[in-house]
């Protein structure tokens, strides 16, 4: 396998992007998932649908509308300019934002499942022991939902690594800033550098296989310990 220094920098950037995205996404997804798992509000269905939208939308479509939104006349672009951050298009922060939207359902869904499976009883018991809600959430709910968090983290990370359309649309292919593995492979293929494309794609395939293998092992262990 021949990986050039450009390939390596793309790999590092991809891991960094996936890591940052996963951490921020877990922070964002936890309250959303908690709310979805417990609310009886009429808003539940529409919010759940919005969270699931990135599953259905083609990534290039998502990317195109992000590009418009990030632009100087777009809502996000006007806000970031007003806040003095400049434009997010063609920046690492822009990619993080895009990746968070793109991978949102993969973080929220496992957490909703975990919170729902937990039921309301553990929190009620904690309440009778005079734990306040926040305290109970951190000391009871989160440890109980740990498998859900692990699953959400792995899926978000893996899904962000495999992201292509959004990055292609809003990235601008800047080395060390927005050129990730998937766009690098695309570049190799388009430039007819098939040997290099094969090397990088092979590395990615191996990575994806290992992640899925770990998830499937973790799942089996969980069902085994549960029974």
């Amino acid at each position, binding site marked *: 396998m021949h990986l050039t220094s450009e390939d390596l920098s793309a790999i590092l950037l991809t891991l960094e992007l996936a890591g940052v995205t996963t951490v921020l996404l877990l922070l964002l997804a936890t309250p959303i998932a908690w709310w979805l798992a417990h609310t009886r509000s009429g808003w539940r269905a529409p919010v759940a649908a919005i969270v699931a939208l990135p599953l259905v939308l083609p990534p290039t479509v998502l990317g195109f509308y992000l*590009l418009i939104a990030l632009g100087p006349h777009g809502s996000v672009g006007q806000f970031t300019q007003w806040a003095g951050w400049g*434009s997010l*298009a*063609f920046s690492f922060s822009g990619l993080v934002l895009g990746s968070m939207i793109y991978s949102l359902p993969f973080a929220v869904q496992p957490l909703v499942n975990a919170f729902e499976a937990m039921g309301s009883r553990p929190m009620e018991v904690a309440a009778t022991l005079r734990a306040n809600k926040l305290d109970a959430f951190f000391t009871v709910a989160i440890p109980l939902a740990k498998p859900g968090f692990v699953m959400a983290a792995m899926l978000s990370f893996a899904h962000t690594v495999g992201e292509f359309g959004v990055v*292609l*649309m809003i990235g601008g292919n800047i080395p060390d800033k927005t050129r990730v593995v998937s766009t690098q492979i695309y570049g190799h293929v*388009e430039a*007819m550098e098939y040997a290099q494309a094969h090397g990088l794609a092979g590395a990615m395939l191996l990575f994806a296989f290992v992640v899925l293998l770990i998830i499937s092992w973790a799942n089996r262990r969980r069902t085994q310990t549960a029974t």
Partner: protein
Amino acid sequence: MGLRLLRFCLSAVILSVTFVCGCAKADEVVIAVAANFTAPMQKIAQAFEQDTVHKAKLVFGSTGKLYAQIKNGAPFAVFLSADDETPARLEKEGVAVAGTRFTYAVGRLALWSRNPSLVDDKGQVLIGNASDKNSFKKIAIADPKLAPYGVAAMEVLKGTGALTHVAPKLVQGDSIGQAFQFVMTENADLGFVALSQISIDGRITQGSAWVVPQNLYTPLKQDAILLALGKENAAALALMKYMRSERAQSIIRNYGYTL
């Protein structure tokens, strides 16, 4: 009775399908077209269908993608590339018919902004200093590794000595279409695009532009070639000829290409 009727209907359907397919195959040509030539080719295909008995089906894509598809057995009879290297390569690799290559259009490069006062007609904006009120944050080009227009843009930047000043502001689209999109959505203040993307009947449709003099970059020759599949196809041969007709050439010129 019911079964017999069903059988009759089925064979009628199969017969008519084979008949339609058989007919269409005889005078239909599937053409792989480089994405930057989309608009003019749609017009030319219309004219081709009016002027001949044949039908043209168009498939658009980047030259690199179309190359990969052709090499892997895509059912294209003619290839209109965005460069002159890929058709030559296909000819050498025996996938295309030797001796059928010709230049059907020569692309023109333009530096374009949606801001009506940003780009001057000499391209001075490229070398203006940073304190200039006409300075810019991002400039889009097509990826020089992937798109001939990107190579041309880099030649212009190097030739005018603007590259060092401009390099930190460069963003790359994977095609000239995406470079255009970056400027169109104003995520990039300006960018090198194809003249064909921003002009109709020889006029720039909006914003400000510098039509880059052709001596500043290697000519953007776009070559056509007959693919092995089209060798015996009357419609493919007719199309190759039609591309050089008066009517096709005037359409090509109208879209900002030279010949």
